[in-house]
């Protein structure tokens, strides 16, 4: 789970240079870049960023405005301010605005790297857990009334999410561009995760509606339904889903916008479970050109009393093979020649 650091500066030559220099730290953090505050905001939406390093004076949106945006929308993301025109006032303003650090230009790249590493360490000051089930850990936090920020890395989809707890109360959740209950439902449905614990919670305003137990219960139900492989990509609206089995009493949640694992994510999950990793998985995409082959396969099935069509494997050349999954939109799982195809096909067929 390598953290991402977003570096924002309007000097694109310097930006390119620092990105190149920071390639040496690729095992500690990866670098994203943006040329101004607006581009940084877009990058924050698209990526799970752990730290922002920003210049003060930039066109469109300056460093201080970006800092204000961070403390409003991403209070967990630390920021380091860098400036060539340092004054005691600007330093004070930056730190008061929520900056975790301050560095004056010109500086040695190693100095900035060590500041970044020091700040990133805070993300995991409470430790990292590799194998504990997420639902069990969340219930422990609630019981122990812990204040912490949990960063969750989904080892299957390689997605990242974040949960904020204040005295055992779930305050907010975030995954990609989603927040609140929607994000919590999605994160709680992950089951192969790494957890990093930070012993503080930067969120003071509660955005989660409903009891934690009820959200967990609903998330499990959604996961169970998702595991029974949908025929299509499109999410059916909640009213089309089956009523949940009455396993335990659960309070009604005011806001219900659950997010199912997408069909490609589910295929990826099955692939990883069968192959051990996704190294031999090249891509998953929809390709209507396979429709004809699948239809012909369905036509010949009765000749062999074969039953319904499950999947089709195509060996095009030694480097890339395709597993085509039937449906209104045929989905192609492109795999490399080193893929353990028999195990993978067995898993996908089921």
């Amino acid at each position, binding site marked *: 789970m390598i953290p991402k650091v977003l570096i924002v500066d309007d000097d694109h030559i310097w930006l390119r240079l620092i990105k190149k220099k920071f390639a040496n730290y690729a095992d500690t953090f990866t670098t994203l870049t943006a040329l101004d505050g607006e581009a940084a905001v877009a990058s924050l939406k698209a990526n799970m960023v752990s730290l922002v390093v920003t210049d003060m004076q930039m066109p469109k949106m300056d460093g201080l405005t970006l800092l204000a945006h961070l403390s409003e929308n991403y209070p967990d993301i630390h920021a380091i301010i860098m400036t060539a025109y340092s004054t005691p006032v600007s330093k004070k303003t930056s730190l008061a605005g929520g900056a975790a650090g301050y560095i004056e230009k010109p500086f040695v790249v190693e100095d900035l790297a060590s500041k970044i590493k020091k700040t990133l360490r805070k993300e995991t000051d409470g430790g990292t857990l590799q194998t504990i089930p997420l639902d069990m850990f969340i219930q422990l936090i609630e019981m122990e009334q812990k204040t912490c920020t949990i960063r969750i890395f989904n080892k299957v989809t390689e997605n990242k999410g974040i949960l904020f707890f204040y005295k055992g109360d779930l305050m907010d959740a975030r995954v990609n561009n989603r927040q609140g209950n929607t994000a919590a439902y999605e994160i709680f449905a992950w089951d192969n995760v790494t957890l990093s614990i930070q012993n503080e919670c930067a969120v003071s305003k509660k955005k989660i509606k409903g009891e934690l137990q009820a959200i967990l219960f609903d998330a499990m139900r959604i996961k169970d339904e998702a595991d029974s492989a949908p025929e299509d990509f499109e999410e059916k609206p909640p009213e089309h889903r089956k009523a949940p089995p009455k396993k335990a009493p659960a309070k009604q949640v005011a806001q219900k916008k659950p997010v199912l694992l997408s069909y490609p994510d589910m295929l990826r999950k099955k692939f990883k479970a069968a192959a051990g990793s996704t190294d031999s998985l090249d891509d998953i995409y929809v390709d209507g050109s396979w429709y*004809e*082959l699948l239809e*012909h*396969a369905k*036509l*010949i*099935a009765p*000749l*062999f*009393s*074969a*039953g*319904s*069509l*499950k*999947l*089709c*494997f*195509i*060996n*095009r*050349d030694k480097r890339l093979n395709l597993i085509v999954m039937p449906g209104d939109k045929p989905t192609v799982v492109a795999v490399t020649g080193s893929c353990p195809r*028999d195990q993978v*096909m*067995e898993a996908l*067929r089921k």
Partner: protein
Amino acid sequence: MKTIFNDILEINGVIGAIFIDKNNKIKIEGYNASPEPNLNPLDLAAFMNTIGAHSETEIHFDNLRLYIRKIETGHILVITGYNVQMAMVRLNCDVLEPLIKSKFGKPTGIGRFFKK
């Protein structure tokens, strides 16, 4: 004409094997199970045309799978269950290819000028 498929049909779980030539005509077929499938030549021809030039195609159905290997003289189609060592099936197809070619392929070299 079962002899050429003897080895492949002896693999545990293999239901049948068919050789289909380039004109999509069934030239050899052998089955372990009965009743043997009633293959409609038109359906089969249309299907083989869509398979095209892919060197291997494997189609999984609820009850069985079809393994189709393209060879120089046509296609070998093996019908199997799911408790089959597919590596053995592929290996047997590798072995079958030269045998089928010698039987159904066009003669090459000087031999093609002499009648057998």
